[in-house]
């Protein structure tokens, strides 16, 4: 017994080191899985609060660009309004695409990273405002990411510039779909993989979100085709997509609440059980 105590006392530094290293490696390895621990994320009270304060200051420096973006969005909405066919006629509800079934929460990006392989954003609305894990995040130009962790007033978002993110996307003109990933290289481009050979793809074609995702509604803009490769091993196309969004400069975002999501997931689970 004496010897054990002696050993512990003599090697206390080494044991402390191994303990702390063990904890940190555990956290590192865990963070590479899709749903990360809630503790070490910038959605918690301390870091979220600090980032909000910092953002309050830095926002002033970006007021001009934000104003420009809002003015452009206004102009676009106005042109839609003036070009509407007949405002007195009863509008047909577009229930097929499910647009009206989505509530939208307006939020603001308070922290943004884009220099690592796994990038996250922090936004200033959380579970009190109705934000939950796995909701879609978009802005006026296109998609931004998917909600990861939430706390009471903050949430982290898995950016589309994250090698872990995978989003269903399709060609706007032909409905051929693939999955949208990022190779970790350039912040302006993401990759659309597994597009069938049959699809006719031209440079400049628009890529939008596909209907298979329960996170995003169909037909939300992503970007345009900038390059395409034909992969010999898989017989599928791989496309470099130039994003509409400038992911290094994000202000206000919209979070999409899909009411049908739980229903669809339950239905699919039921089907799996039956099989």
């Amino acid at each position, binding site marked *: 017994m004496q010897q054990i105590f002696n050993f512990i006392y003599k090697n206390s*530094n080494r044991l402390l*080191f191994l303990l702390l290293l063990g904890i940190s490696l*555990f956290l*590192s390895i865990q963070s590479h899985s899709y749903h990360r621990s809630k503790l*070490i994320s910038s959605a918690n009270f301390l870091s979220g609060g600090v980032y909000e304060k*910092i953002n309050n200051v830095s926002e002033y420096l970006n007021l001009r660009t934000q104003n420009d973006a809002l003015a452009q969005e206004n102009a676009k909405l106005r042109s839609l309004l003036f070009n509407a066919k007949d405002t007195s006629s009863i509008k047909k509800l577009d229930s097929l695409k499910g647009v009206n079934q989505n509530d939208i929460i307006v939020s603001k990006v308070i922290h943004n990273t884009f*220099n690592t392989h*796994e990038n996250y954003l922090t936004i200033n609305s959380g579970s009190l405002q109705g934000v939950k894990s796995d909701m879609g995040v978009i802005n006026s130009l296109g998609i931004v990411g998917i909600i990861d962790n939430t706390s009471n007033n903050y949430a982290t978002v898995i950016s589309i510039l994250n090698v872990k993110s995978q989003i269903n996307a399709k060609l706007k003109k032909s409905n051929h779909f693939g999955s949208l990933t990022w190779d*970790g290289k350039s912040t302006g481009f993401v990759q659309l993989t597994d597009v069938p050979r049959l699809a006719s793809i031209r440079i400049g074609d628009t890529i939008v979100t596909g209907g298979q995702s329960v996170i995003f509604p169909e037909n939300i803009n992503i970007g345009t085709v900038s390059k395409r490769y034909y992969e010999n091993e898989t017989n599928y196309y791989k496309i470099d997509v130039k994003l509409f969004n400038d992911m290094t400069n994000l202000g206000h975002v919209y979070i999409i609440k899909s009411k049908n999501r739980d229903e669809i997931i339950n239905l699919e689970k039921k089907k799996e059980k039956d099989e």
Partner: protein
Amino acid sequence: MNSALFVNIFRFIMLLAVQIIIFNNMNFLGFISPYPYILFIILYPVNSNKSGLLAASFFLGLCMDMFSNSGGFHTAACVILAYYRPYLFKFAFGLSYEYQTIKLNDVLTPERFTFLLLSVVIHHLILFTLEAFKFTLILDILLRTLLSSVFTLIICIIIIYLTKPNRR
């Protein structure tokens, strides 16, 4: 002794704040960013308690991870750097080093530069390896380590020169 404690707590908070507010937003060429917050571990008093340094480095790394959304990469890198700091001292200042006489916060000599360089490279290598977590990205890891180390080293030396206590 107490004043040393306060100096260290002040340094901890200041370096963390400067890192989060300024240096985390510096993305030179899109992926090179400096991490001069490790100056806390480098400048920690040489002759003080080792477990204290380990615990402080752990919390320093944990705070960094919390603010940069990076799991436990900074924590692991900081703890390893803190543990191997005495060996680096031995390597850089020779076997006959006397703890009391080493002062890092001073004019740059080749020994001090060696120590700084080794600390920065070790920290960055561990950090970027854990961040990428794939052996196929080894070239990317080495490139990031090299470029970011140079960047961090320059900023560390500038900070040391700006904050060194001036004697006449």
